[in-house]
C-alpha cells in the first residue's frame, strides 16, 4: 500500500458529504440553510435508536454500517491528487467496482431486516437493478484501463495527460454515467428507496444514528462516483494553471452537479424499463466499448 491515511479518507468523507449536501441544495434551487440542516441532524441523532418491530434485527442494524464501509472504501480508491492518491492498489479500479458491489448485500439486508412488505420489495428491486448495472460498470472500467495498460487509478489518470478519456471513448462515458447512477441508487434510478412509490422503501424504518449513517453513505457514494468519473474520464488532476487538487475538486463537483441535475429532470425509471435498458442495450454496448478500447489501444497507446 502507498502512504495512505485512513483518517484522512474519513475526514474527506465527512467534509465531502457536507459539500454534496450543499450541491444538492444549489441544484434544487433552494437557498442552503446550514444552521437548520445541522439542527435537523441533531434531532435525528438524538432520536433513540429504538428498535421498531423489525423482522431481523441483526441484519437490519448491520446494514447501515456495511453501507458506510462500502462507500468509504469506494471513496478511498479514488485518486484525488498526486500527493493524496488514496489506496493506490495495483488493481484499484477493480476495488472501486468491488466496493460498490457491497452496496447490494447492504441494501438487501436493510430491506429484508425491516420486514415491511414494501421494504422487502425495495430490497429485491435493488437486487435486480444492481446486477443489471454492475456489469456495465466493470466492463467500462476494463475499457478505460486498456489504454492505460493497468488497473491502477493513478496510471489511468496519467495516461490522459494529453487527451481526456471522455473525448477518446464517448461511448464508454455514455454507459458509465447511467450505470454508476444506478449502482449508487441516485435519482432517476432511486428505485429501492422511492419515497412516494414504496413509502421510503428500503430505508423507511431507520431511525436515529442508523438513518444518519444511511444518508451519509448515500452522499459519500455520490462523491466517490463523481470522483472516479473525473479520474477515469476527465483526466483527473491534469489541467493548466490551477493546482491539481483544485482541478480534481472542480471536476468532481461538475460531475456531481450533472448527476443531481439529471436526477431532477428525469422521472424515476420504472423497474422493467431499467432492466430491459440494462440487459438489451447497456451490456451489449459495453462489450462493444471494450472492443473499441482494444482497437484504440493498439492504434494509439502502444
Amino acid at each position: 500500500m502507498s502512504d495512505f491515511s485512513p483518517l484522512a479518507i474519513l475526514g474527506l468523507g465527512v467534509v465531502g458529504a457536507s459539500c454534496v449536501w450543499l450541491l444538492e441544495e444549489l441544484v434544487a434551487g433552494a437557498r442552503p440553510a446550514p444552521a437548520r440542516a445541522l439542527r435537523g441532524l441533531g434531532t435525528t441523532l438524538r432520536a433513540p435508536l429504538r428498535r421498531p418491530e423489525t423482522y431481523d434485527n441483526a441484519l437490519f442494524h448491520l446494514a447501515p454500517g456495511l453501507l458506510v464501509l462500502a462507500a468509504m472504501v469506494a471513496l478511498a480508491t479514488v485518486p484525488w491528487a498526486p500527493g493524496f492518491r488514496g489506496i493506490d492498489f495495483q488493481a484499484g479500479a477493480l476495488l472501486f467496482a468491488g466496493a460498490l458491489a457491497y452496496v447490494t448485500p447492504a441494501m438487501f439486508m436493510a430491506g429484508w431486516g425491516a420486514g415491511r412488505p414494501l421494504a422487502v420489495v425495495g430490497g429485491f428491486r435493488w437486487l435486480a437493478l444492481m446486477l443489471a448495472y454492475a456489469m456495465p460498470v466493470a466492463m467500462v472500467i476494463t475499457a478505460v484501463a486498456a489504454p492505460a495498460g493497468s488497473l491502477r487509478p493513478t496510471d489511468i489518470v496519467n495516461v490522459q495527460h494529453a487527451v481526456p478519456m471522455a473525448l477518446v471513448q464517448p461511448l464508454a462515458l455514455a454507459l458509465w454515467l447511467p450505470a454508476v447512477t444506478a449502482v449508487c441508487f441516485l435519482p432517476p434510478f432511486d428505485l429501492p428507496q422511492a419515497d412516494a412509490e414504496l413509502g421510503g422503501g428500503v430505508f423507511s424504518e431507520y431511525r436515529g444514528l442508523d438513518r444518519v449513517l444511511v444518508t451519509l453513505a448515500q452522499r459519500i457514494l455520490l462523491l466517490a462516483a463523481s470522483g472516479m468519473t473525473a479520474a477515469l474520464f476527465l483526466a483527473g488532476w491534469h489541467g493548466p494553471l490551477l493546482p491539481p487538487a483544485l482541478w480534481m475538486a472542480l471536476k468532481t463537483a461538475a460531475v456531481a452537479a450533472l448527476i443531481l441535475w439529471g436526477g431532477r429532470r428525469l422521472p424515476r425509471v420504472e423497474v422493467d424499463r431499467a432492466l430491459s435498458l440494462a440487459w438489451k442495450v447497456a451490456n451489449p454496448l459495453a462489450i462493444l466499448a471494450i472492443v473499441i478500447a482494444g482497437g484504440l489501444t493498439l492504434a494509439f497507446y502502444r
Partner: protein
Amino acid sequence: MVAECGVRATLRQPRPPVGAAPLPPDALSPVAWLVATAGASEVDSGVAVRNGAWLRLSAVELERAVSHLAWLRALARLLGWPTLVEEASAVLEPLNASRLHLPVELATPDLPDTTAHDMAALVDVAAARVAHLRELCHGRRLARRTARLGVVTHPTAVALALGGPVARASGVDADARSHDPLYRELGFVPAVCEDGDALARTLLRLDEAEASIALVRHALERARQYAVPPAPPAAPTGVTLEGPRGPLHAQRMRHEWRLTAPGQQAALTAAADAVVGLEWAAALVVLSSFDLSPWKVGP
C-alpha cells in the same frame, strides 16, 4: 389497496332560510358543491341572482384548474420527477392566490372592480406558465411512465356510466357544461380523447385546466364589463354542475337537499379493474390517474 371512506351524506334539515347552503359532502371540491346548492336553492325558491353568474363560473373553473393541477403535482411526486413538481407548483401559486380574492358568499351579485382586476392579473401569470407545463407533459418522459396503462375502453365507460375526465378520456363525450348557456357564450368545447389510458387521462386533465384558466379570464372580463349573462334554463330536477371529478347534482326538495355525484362509485370499480396484474409502481400510477375521491356521496 383502494381505501373507501363511505360517508353517507343525505342531509335532512328543517326548512332552511332562503339562500343558505348546506355543508358540502365532498371535501375535495367544496366550491362546486356550494355553487350547485346555491343554484338549486335559487331554482327552488324561484329567485334568480343573475349578476353573480360570471363570478360563480370563475369560482367553479378556478377550483377545477386548481384541483387538476394539484393532482398533477401529486402524480409528479409519485413519479419521482422534481422538475414537474416545480412547474406545477409555479402554475398553482397564482391560481390559489387569485382564489383568495373571491368573496366567501358566492351568492352575492357583485365583485368590486379592483378585485376583478387583481384576480385577472394573477390568472394571466398562471396562463403564461401553463404553456411551459404543457410542453413538459407532452414530451416522452411522461408518456413512458403512463402510456397504454390502465386502459378503460369506450364500451366499459358507457356500461359503467362513468363521468368526468375519466369518461371523456375514453371517448365518452359527456360534459354537463355543454348544456349550460353561460359556458356556450364563452365558447366552451369539451375536451375528449380516444385512448382511455393513464396518459390520456393526464393530458386531458391538463387540457381542461388550461381551458378553465382561459374561461376564467373571459368570465372576469365580462364581470368587469357588467355584461348581462344569459338566462339559465328552467330545471325542475335541480342543478347539475361539472365538478373536477364528474357531474354533481344538487336538488332542493321541500325539506331536504339531495346531493349526488353519479359516476364516482363507478370510477372506483373501473380503477379496481384497471390495476389488476400491473407492477406495483405502474399500478400506483394508474390508480392515481383516476383521481378518485374518497368520499362516497349520496343516499
